C-alpha cells in the first residue's frame, strides 16, 4: 500500500543503527488502525449487516417510578412482520456490573425505576415494523412516588426504589478515618469549610450503542457489541441466559467513543442475545440518541463539603470530606464511585489525617456510573477550588502553595495508596512557566483572569471487579514464517489507541514495524482476558503483558539466531526488521529468516504474557478502590474572559502539563490530553444532565430536560481554545517502557481551573459545576449588593453516618488495617481482598 509507506513517520530506510535506541516507542506515529478509520472501513457494531438479520426495538417506561400491573403484548405479537415479543419474564435473572449490585433486569418484571427503563422488546423483520409494534403493547402501570434527588431520597425512605442497600433509599454509606482528624484541626492555624456541587453530565459518544447477536452454526451465541468491557458482558450473558460461558463469544467492536458510557453490561445486549437464540437468526439493535441518554451511567451529581485545616505556611493538618451522591435508579458502578469520590484526595498533596464520609442514594433517574475520571472529578473540583481560597487567605500564590505540599514519589498516603513516580511539582512549574502565570495571576485587567488546578489519576485499578488470583490482562503472540506477528488480546479499542499501544510495544521489542503486526483484540474467544477499557488500565496492564510476551518471543528467536550466526545471544539486536550482531551490524538475518530459524529449532513459535498488579498495602474494608500500580499527575492553567454584562465565559487559552511517565506514541498522547481538556471544558462550562417535573395536571413525572444532542450542549470546534500541552517524561519502572495513563487524568484539573480563573477575572466564586453565565450574573449581583460574592450550595443535609472505620496512617504505625474492625483483622489477606473488591 504505497499511500501508507509515503506518509509513515518511521523512515523505512533509515541509516542502520546499533539497535540500542528506541525506534517505535516515543516516536510520533500513524496509529495502526488509522487507515481503517479515515476510509470509513472501521466496522462499528451498527455497520454489521447479516443475512436474515432482524431488528429489535425496546418499549421503554414513560414513568419515572411505577409498578407494572400487567403487560399485554398479544396485539404486537400478531402484527405482520413481527417475529417475537419479549417481556421481563423471559429474561428475569438479575445482573449488574458489580457483584454487590446485581439489581438490573434486561426487561423490567414488576417495576420501572426511571423514564427509559425497558419493559418489552419487539423483534421484527424490519426496524420500522418493530418500532410500530411498540405502540401495540399495552402496559398497565401503577404510578409510584418519584424521588428526584438525594435530599428527597434521605427524607423519603418509603417507597424504596430497591429492596437492598443500607436503608430506605440509601444505596451505600462509607465512613473511613485515617488518623485523628479533630487533632489535625486543633493543630491548624486556619480552618476552611466549603460546600460545592457538581452537576451530573453524560458521555455523549457520537456512536449510539448497538449490538448484533447470532446463534452460530454450532448453536452457540456470538454477539458483536459497542462495549468497553466484553469480559463483563460475557459474564452477564452467561448468568442471565444460564448458558455455559464457553458457549458465548463476545466481540467488542471498535467503539465510536466510550468515555465510560459503554462499560456496563446493558439490557439491550441481553435482549438481542436471548432473541437470537430463540429465533435462530441474527438480531440487531441500535439505540436512538434519546435511548442513549436513558442508558446514561454518566457523571454522578455530587454535593460535597470540605473541611480543611492548614498551617500558616500552607501545610495541610487534616481534611474531612463529605459527599452526597445522586446515584440514579440502579447500582451500576455506584459502590465503587462512592469510594472513588473519597479515595484520591490524598494522592496529590500530603494530607496527614483524613476522614471521608460518602453517601450514595437511589433516585428515579437514569443510573449514574463511570465517566472519564470516575467519581474523582467532583471532589477534585471542590478540593482545588478550596485550595485557591486557602492560598488567597494565606496570601500565598496558588502555584507556590501547591509546590510546598505536593506528595513525593513512592510515598504511601494516609489511606495506604502506594504512589509511583510523582512529578506533580514539575507539572506545576512547567505550566507556570509556559503560561507566564506570574505575570498574569491577579494582574490581568477586570474581566480577564487565570486559574490553576492540579490532579492525579489511577493507571489501572489495583483490584479486579471479580476478585480472583488471575492476571488482569493477557497477551498471546503468534510468530509467522512470513515474518508477521499476530497479537491476541482482550483489550478493547474505544478510540484511545489500545491496539496501537500493543503493536508499538511488540514492534519495539522485536525490531519490526507496527504495520507488520496483525491485531485480534476485544474478542472473548480469540484472545486471553483483558478486563476492559476502563480505569485507565490498558496501557500499563495490557502493555506489560504484551511486553512480556514479546520478550519471551525475542528470547526464543535470539537463541536460534545466535546458534546460526555463532554469536553470543546477548550481543544480538532486533531492529529495522533484522536480527544482527551489535558488534558487527552487517552480520545478521532478516526478521523473517530469524523466525524461520527459531521455528526449525523449537517448533511453532507462540508466546504469552500476562500482568497482575502488585498487592496494595491498604487492607481495610473499602481499601480496594483507589490502589493502582502508579498514578498520573496533571497541572493546568486556564485563561478566561468573562463578559460582565452577560456573564458569558470565553476561554482563549489552556496550558496543561501531564506526568505521563513515557509517551509511547506522542501523537496519540497529545490527542488524549487535548481530548480530556476539551471534555473537561464542556463539563466546566455547559454540559449538564438536567431533569424537570412535568406539570401536576400532566403526570408530574420527572423527565430529562435535555434528551437530545441539540439541547445537551457540548463544545463545538468554535468553542475550543488553543491548548499548549507539555509532557513530563520520567519513565515509571512500573509501566511498559515507563508509561503511565493519559486517558482520564488531564480532564480533572480543567473544571476547578476554570472556576478559579473566573474568580481571578471578576472576583466571584462559582462553587458549582457547570459555571454558567446565569450563575456568574447571580454572583455578580451578590457582589454588587455587598454580600458574599459567590454562587453555590450553602448547606449539607444531615446523614446518619455509621461509625468510621479507623485506620491509623503509616506514620502513626498503621499496618493498613482498621483498628475497630476486629473480626476483619483476623481474616487472611485473601479473604480481605475478596471483600475489598468493589
Amino acid at each position, binding site marked *: 500500500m504505497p*499511500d501508507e509507506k*509515503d506518509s509513515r513517520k518511521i523512515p523505512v530506510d533509515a541509516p542502520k543503527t546499533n539497535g540500542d535506541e528506541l525506534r517505535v516507542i516515543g516516536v510520533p506515529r500513524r496509529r495502526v488502525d488509522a487507515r481503517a478509520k479515515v*476510509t470509513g472501513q472501521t466496522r462499528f457494531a451498527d455497520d454489521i449487516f447479516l443475512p436474515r438479520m432482524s431488528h429489535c426495538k425496546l418499549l421503554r417506561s414513560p414513568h419515572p417510578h411505577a409498578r407494572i400491573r400487567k403487560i399485554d403484548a398479544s396485539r404486537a405479537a400478531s402484527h*405482520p*412482520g413481527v417475529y417475537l415479543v419479549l417481556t421481563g419474564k423471559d429474561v428475569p435473572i438479575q445482573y449488574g456490573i458489580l457483584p454487590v449490585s446485581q439489581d438490573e433486569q434486561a426487561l423490567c418484571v414488576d417495576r420501572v425505576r426511571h423514564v427509559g427503563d425497558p419493559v418489552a422488546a419487539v423483534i421484527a423483520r424490519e426496524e420500522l415494523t418493530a418500532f410500530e409494534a411498540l405502540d401495540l403493547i399495552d402496559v398497565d402501570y401503577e404510578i409510584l412516588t418519584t424521588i428526584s434527588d438525594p435530599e428527597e431520597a434521605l427524607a423519603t425512605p418509603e417507597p424504596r426504589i430497591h429492596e437492598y442497600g443500607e436503608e430506605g433509599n440509601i444505596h451505600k454509606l462509607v465512613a473511613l478515618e485515617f488518623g485523628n482528624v479533630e487533632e489535625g484541626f486543633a493543630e491548624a492555624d486556619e480552618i476552611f469549610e466549603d460546600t460545592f456541587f457538581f452537576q451530573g453530565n453524560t458521555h455523549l459518544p457520537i456512536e449510539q450503542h448497538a449490538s448484533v447477536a447470532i446463534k452460530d452454526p454450532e448453536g452457540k451465541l456470538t454477539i458483536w457489541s459497542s462495549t468497553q468491557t466484553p469480559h463483563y458482558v460475557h459474564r452477564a450473558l452467561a448468568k442471565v441466559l444460564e448458558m455455559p460461558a464457553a458457549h458465548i463469544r463476545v466481540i467488542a467492536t471498535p467503539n465510536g*467513543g466510550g468515555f465510560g458510557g459503554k462499560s456496563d453490561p446493558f439490557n439491550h445486549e441481553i435482549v438481542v442475545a436471548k432473541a437470537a437464540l430463540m429465533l435462530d437468526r441474527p438480531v440487531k439493535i441500535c439505540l436512538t440518541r434519546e435511548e442513549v441518554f436513558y442508558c446514561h451511567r454518566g457523571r454522578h451529581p455530587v454535593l460535597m463539603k470540605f473541611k480543611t485545616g492548614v498551617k500558616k505556611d500552607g501545610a495541610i493538618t487534616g481534611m474531612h470530606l463529605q459527599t452526597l451522591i445522586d446515584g440514579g435508579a440502579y447500582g451500576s458502578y455506584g459502590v465503587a464511585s462512592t469510594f472513588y469520590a473519597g479515595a484520591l484526595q490524598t494522592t496529590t498533596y500530603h494530607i496527614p489525617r483524613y476522614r471521608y464520609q460518602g453517601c450514595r442514594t437511589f433516585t428515579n433517574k437514569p443510573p449514574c456510573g463511570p465517566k472519564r475520571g470516575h467519581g474523582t472529578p467532583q471532589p477534585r473540583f471542590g478540593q482545588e477550588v478550596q485550595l485557591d481560597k486557602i492560598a488567597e487567605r494565606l496570601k500565598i500564590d496558588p502555584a507556590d502553595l501547591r509546590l510546598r505540599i505536593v506528595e513525593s514519589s513512592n510515598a504511601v498516603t494516609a489511606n495506604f495508596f502506594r504512589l509511583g513516580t510523582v512529578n506533580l511539582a514539575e507539572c506545576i512549574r512547567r505550566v507556570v512557566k509556559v503560561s507566564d502565570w506570574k505575570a498574569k495571576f491577579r494582574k490581568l485587567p477586570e474581566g480577564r483572569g487565570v486559574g490553576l488546578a492540579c490532579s492525579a489519576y489511577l493507571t489501572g485499578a489495583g483490584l479486579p471487579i471479580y476478585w480472583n488470583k488471575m492476571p488482569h490482562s493477557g497477551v498471546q503472540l503468534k510468530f509467522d514464517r512470513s515474518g508477521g506477528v499476530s497479537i491476541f488480546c482482550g483489550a478493547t479499542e474505544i478510540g484511545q489507541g489500545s491496539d496501537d499501544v500493543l503493536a508499538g510495544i511488540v514492534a519495539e521489542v522485536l525490531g519490526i514495524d507496527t504495520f507488520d503486526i496483525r491485531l485480534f483484540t476485544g474478542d472473548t474467544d480469540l484472545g486471553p482476558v483483558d478486563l476492559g477499557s476502563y480505569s485507565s488500565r490498558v496501557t500499563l496492564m495490557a502493555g506489560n503483558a504484551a511486553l512480556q510476551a514479546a520478550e519471551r518471543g525475542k528470547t526464543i528467536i535470539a537463541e536460534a539466531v545466535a546458534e546460526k550466526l555463532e554469536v553470543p545471544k546477548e550481543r544480538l539486536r532486533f531492529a529495522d526488521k533484522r536480527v544482527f550482531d551489535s558488534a558487527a551490524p552487517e552480520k545478521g538475518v532478516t526478521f523473517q529468516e530469524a523466525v524461520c530459524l527459531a521455528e526449525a529449532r523449537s517448533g511453532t513459535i507462540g508466546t504469552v504474557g500476562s500482568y497482575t498488579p502488585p498487592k496494595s498495602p491498604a487492607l481495610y474494608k473499602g481499601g480496594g478502590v483507589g490502589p493502582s500500580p502508579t498514578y498520573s499527575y496533571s497541572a493546568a492553567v486556564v485563561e478566561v474572559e468573562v463578559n460582565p454584562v452577560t456573564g458569558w465565559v470565553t476561554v482563549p487559552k489552556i496550558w496543561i502539563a501531564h506526568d505521563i511517565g513515557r509517551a509511547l506514541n506522542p501523537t496519540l498522547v*497529545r490527542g488524549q490530553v*487535548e481530548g480530556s481538556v476539551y471534555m473537561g471544558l464542556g463539563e466546566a462550562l455547559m454540559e449538564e444532565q438536567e431533569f424537570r417535573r412535568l406539570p401536576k395536571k400532566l403526570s408530574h413525572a420527572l423527565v430529562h430536560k435535555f434528551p437530545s444532542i441539540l439541547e445537551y450542549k457540548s463544545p463545538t470546534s468554535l468553542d475550543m481554545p488553543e491548548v499548549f500541552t507539555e509532557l513530563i517524561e520520567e519513565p515509571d519502572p512500573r509501566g511498559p517502557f515507563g508509561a503511565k495513563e493519559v486517558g482520564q487524568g488531564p480532564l480533572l484539573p480543567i473544571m476547578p481551573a476554570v472556576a478559579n480563573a473566573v474568580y481571578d477575572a471578576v472576583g466571584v466564586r462559582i462553587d458549582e459545576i457547570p459555571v454558567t453565565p446565569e450563575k456568574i450574573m447571580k454572583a455578580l449581583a451578590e457582589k454588587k449588593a455587598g454580600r458574599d460574592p459567590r454562587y453555590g450550595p450553602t448547606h449539607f443535609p444531615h446523614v446518619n453516618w455509621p461509625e468510621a472505620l479507623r485506620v491509623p496512617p503509616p506514620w502513626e504505625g498503621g499496618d493498613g488495617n482498621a483498628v475497630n474492625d476486629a473480626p476483619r483483622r483476623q481474616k487472611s489477606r485473601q479473604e480481605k481482598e475478596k471483600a475489598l473488591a468493589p
Partner: protein
Amino acid sequence: MTTLPIESQKTAQIRFQLNGEETDVSFASYKTLLEVLREDLGHTGTKHGCELGECGACAVLLDGKPVLSCLVLALECGGRQVLTVEGLGEDGNLHPLQDAFADLGAAQCGYCTPAILVTAKALLDQNPHPTRDQIREAISGNLCRCTGYLQIFEAVEAAVLKIAEQKHTIT
C-alpha cells in the same frame, strides 16, 4: 396476499452518481439518503449519531456541498452527485486529507471522521487556502467527542500544504 412490511416495499427508485459511479437503487420511499446509503447500498462509511441533524456524523457531499444525509430524502437525490468517504481516495491512494488525518491523530475513535473528511474536502474545493478560523467554521456542525478538534485543524492545514505541493508538481 399479505402486505409486505413498509420497509420492504422498495417502490421508490432513483439513478444518481455515487462516488462518481452511475448507480440505480430501489428503496422504501420514506427513507433518508443516510438510510439508503447504509442499508440499501452497503455504504456504511457514513455514520449516524442522532438522525435528527444535530451531531453532523452523517454529512456527505450532495453536488459538492455538505449536507446532513439524515435530513435528506433519498428521493430528492435522483440525477445528483453524492460523495461519501468511500469516494475520497483515488486510484487506491488516500486523499491528502485522509493521509493527514491518519498521520496527525485527527481520527481517534474514527466515528465522526468520515463526515469531517468530506466536509473539509468541500471547504478545500471552494477555498484551497483556508485560515484556521475558516476551518473551525466549516466543521462547526460536526461534533467530535474524542479529539478536542485541534489535531483535526492541524490535519486539514497539513492537507492544504500537501494538495498545493501536488498541484505545483503537476503544473
